[in-house]
């Protein structure tokens, strides 16, 4: 048993000895590296070393949590937390941490990402690819991010696990003109499958096509969503499946379990798979992660749970803990039958959107929202990409859009960027009918 796991176990034992009913401790040794670049040059390269134990305990259904960053005073932190539990308030809905001994899948983290050298080279590869597509005047910016975490989890309720989690992602936005840009991302859990040039090429290509944008017109359009912007929508739908957000009505899926919420071609999953940036083998309670089918051929089948929310909903944990808020790890929309070209041919007059930002809701329970497409926005006429547009907004309803999915491509891409397409997802090209577009007046 590794020293870190032994120390994590000691934390649990000490808290139990002080009278805690249930204890959960997760120690993470994280190394995170990031290059930020703009105007084709590196602005800053950043390293974060983070050593932390996340600890939660329950005493007579009083749930308290802490993060221990100072390992010189672990005993003091445990005692303080126990004292806090005794003066805290009972949570009658606390269902206990997940119980049992679990066998976890073997972690396949990429050791090369533990300390990757020559970070700048990957960035330059992407910048150069964008330049090849959009010309030497293109201005690119973005980030390269790497992560390697050693994770040790011990629960008084049985789970004990070790996980290694690795990830690398590059996000690049290229400007061919002041208001003509494209955005590409490349996301992987291993260096082997990471091709920064691909992201640069996509950003450059879209930027080149986006030159000379005109202000778009209001109306109702059939819209093809690129995998990157689809990632934003998938993240929204999957997050609304969190049982916590259902309980606080920050979800349009309240009271819709078992109901048809999408056409039959839509199957939406959460899957912390090995390929994903969010790869893991257990959740924050030590429950094994698993593939969860949230929407099965259009029918809402499950919310995402930790052990407590599962008990409230009279079901089992889905392996998505979060101490308080269950969370999707990696969203997957099942592929459809269509080639990307076929989807474009299907659109007589519509739009092709590549990215969006600033999604905000008027009312989560109803699903009314707006979001602002950015980077390449294109008119499609008779299946062909035509004029580039700018300055439009999707002002619609998140449930209506889910219901109006008409075609899904076979091709999918693993996407993630900033908080806009987060959590990561495996996203296809998707045609959504009758999307409402507005603009400034």
């Amino acid at each position: 048993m590794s020293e870190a796991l032994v120390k994590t176990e000691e934390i649990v034992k000490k808290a139990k000895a002080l009278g805690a009913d249930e204890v959960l401790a997760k120690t993470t040794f994280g190394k995170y590296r990031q290059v930020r670049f703009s105007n084709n040059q590196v602005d800053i390269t950043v390293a974060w070393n983070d050593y932390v134990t996340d600890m939660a305990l329950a005493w007579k259904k009083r749930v308290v949590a802490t993060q221990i960053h100072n390992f010189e005073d672990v005993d003091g932190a445990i005692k303080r937390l126990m004292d806090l539990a005794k003066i805290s308030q009972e949570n009658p809905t606390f269902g206990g941490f997940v119980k049992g001994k679990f066998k976890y899948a073997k972690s396949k983290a990429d050791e090369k990402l533990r300390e990757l050298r020559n970070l700048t080279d990957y960035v330059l590869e992407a910048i150069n690819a964008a330049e090849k597509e959009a010309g030497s005047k293109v201005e690119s910016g973005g980030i390269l991010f790497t992560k390697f975490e050693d994770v040790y989890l011990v629960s008084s309720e049985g789970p004990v696990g070790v996980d290694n989690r690795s990830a690398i992602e590059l996000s690049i936005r290229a400007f061919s003109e002041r208001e003509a840009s494209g955005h590409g991302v490349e996301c992987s859990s291993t260096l082997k499958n990471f091709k920064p040039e691909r992201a640069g090429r996509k950003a450059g290509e879209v930027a080149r096509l986006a030159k000379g944008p005109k202000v778009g017109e209001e109306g109702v359009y059939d819209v093809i969503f690129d995998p990157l912007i689809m990632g934003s929508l998938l993240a929204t739908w999957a997050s609304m499946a969190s049982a916590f957000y259902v309980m606080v009505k920050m979800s349009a899926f309240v009271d819709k379990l078992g109901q048809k919420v999408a056409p039959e071609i839509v199957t939406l999953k959460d899957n912390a798979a090995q390929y994903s940036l969010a790869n893991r083998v257990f959740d924050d309670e030590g429950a094994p992660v698993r593939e969860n089918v949230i929407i099965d051929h259009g029918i809402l089948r499950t919310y995402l749970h930790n052990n407590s929310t599962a008990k409230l909903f009279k079901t089992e944990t889905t392996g998505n803990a979060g101490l308080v808020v269950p969370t999707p790890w990696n969203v997957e929309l099942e592929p459809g039958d269509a080639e990307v070209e076929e989807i474009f041919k299907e659109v007589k007059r519509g739009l092709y959107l590549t990215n969006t930002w600033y999604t905000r809701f008027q009312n989560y329970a109803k699903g009314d929202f707006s979001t602002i497409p950015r980077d390449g926005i294109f008119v499609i006429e008779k299946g062909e990409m035509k004029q580039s547009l700018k300055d439009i907004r999707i002002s619609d309803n998140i449930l209506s859009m889910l219901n109006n999915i008409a075609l899904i491509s076979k091709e999918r891409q693993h996407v993630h960027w900033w908080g806009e397409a987060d959590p990561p997802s495996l996203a296809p090209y998707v045609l959504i009918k009758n999307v409402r577009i507005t603009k400034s007046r």
Partner: protein
Amino acid sequence: MEDLADYVLKYAMDKGVEYVEVRAQQQVQETLMLRSGILEAYMWSVDSGFCTRVIAEGGVGFASTNKWTRDEAREIVDLAIRYAKAAERSEKLVFEKEKSVETKWTVEQKKKLEDVSPEEKIAKLAEANKALASCGVNIAATMLSCTVNLISKHYVNSEGSKISSFIPRIGAYSFITVAEEGKTEQAYQQFGYCGGWEAFKEWSVEERIIHDAKVLKEVITRGKAIKPGTMDLVCGPSVTGIAAHESCGHPMEADRILGREMSQAGRSFIYKGGPYWIGTRIGSEAVTIVDDPTIEHSYGYYAYDDEGVKTRRRYLYKEGVINEFLHNRESAAKLGTRSNGSSRSINYDREAIVRMANTFVLPGDYTEDELIEDVKYGVLMKSFTEWNIDDKRFNQRYVGREAYLIENGEVKHPLARPVIETTTEKFWTAVDAVSKNVEFEAATCGKGDPAQGVPVFTGGPFIRLRRIYIK
């Protein structure tokens, strides 16, 4: 904290770098959250660590750790220097020159946050929830939270600056869903203060969330849609504040103007060689918008920024004209000016970047009644729900939460979610009058990658806009 910071500084300076700074920080944090009256969890933690930022061979490297050992300190300095050199920039980075500062600053608390028991904090939130539950409105769900931060910082740099500070900060958040007649409406409120527990009473949390609940009920039961068209608009402090923040504060961030945020938060409609620059008119003469970190006890208060620069009030749009950008030392050097103390970071493990503090429209001469009296037909939008703005900060949208029709100078029935969707220039140019009184609101401003949510004040006076399209 100070010893290790000095050690890191000396170790890095001995390596012959062009510039180095060290920021050591301890943050004691407590968060409690009630879901529909039930305390979900009480979280308490102490996070402490330090970072170093260096300039070497014209590149910038940054590294942080929470392991307080000299071995670790040397490792992160070596990493930061290696990273800085690896940047291989053609245009070498420098920071604008600043005089060194040695000082200590703190924020006073009438009732120290550290002296308030967890029981009292729980009780206050629970009381607010109970009052809301019995206010005569059907509340379908609530989420109330309170967060306390006690932040100690020690900053040193290779130019001789040495600054220690202590900031106690308290924030609260509410999100409620009202269900009436089979329909729902939702509202959130944020509260924030630098100082002690006295804030909680001053906020009047109960009153404000009950007000929200009653407003939402009114919107559901009596709210009517506005007939779309061009009309006058009176914005309350919430709406004035979000507009000032989004369409003045953000586009005036110099790092954004220079493209450093081009991939994430975006660029700005203001850029060199473009139609808007310092001296260009962007609004009417009635509009002066400032960003001011020096407002005592404000949520965005600080005396020195995270680069050791003394801060001050910044006049962003002055009498309708683009006047002064928000700068850190890097952006100031690039544009040949001085930093105005706008560099902020949320923790030791994040680089300091250009940020707002408290952004608001300066008050005018009118009473609120006078603004409304002179409107023949229009909308009074007191608060908003959905909002957003594009990444060049020009096309924005605000959807009214508490809004009323104004007819012949009188406030009439509630309106159901009226929408303004317009440009920055049209919005600020349409302003013809500003009220005397300013009301601030707390908010968390998002920017940076990884995201750094910094505490700010928005809010401001009531303002009147002529001939705006509302739908």
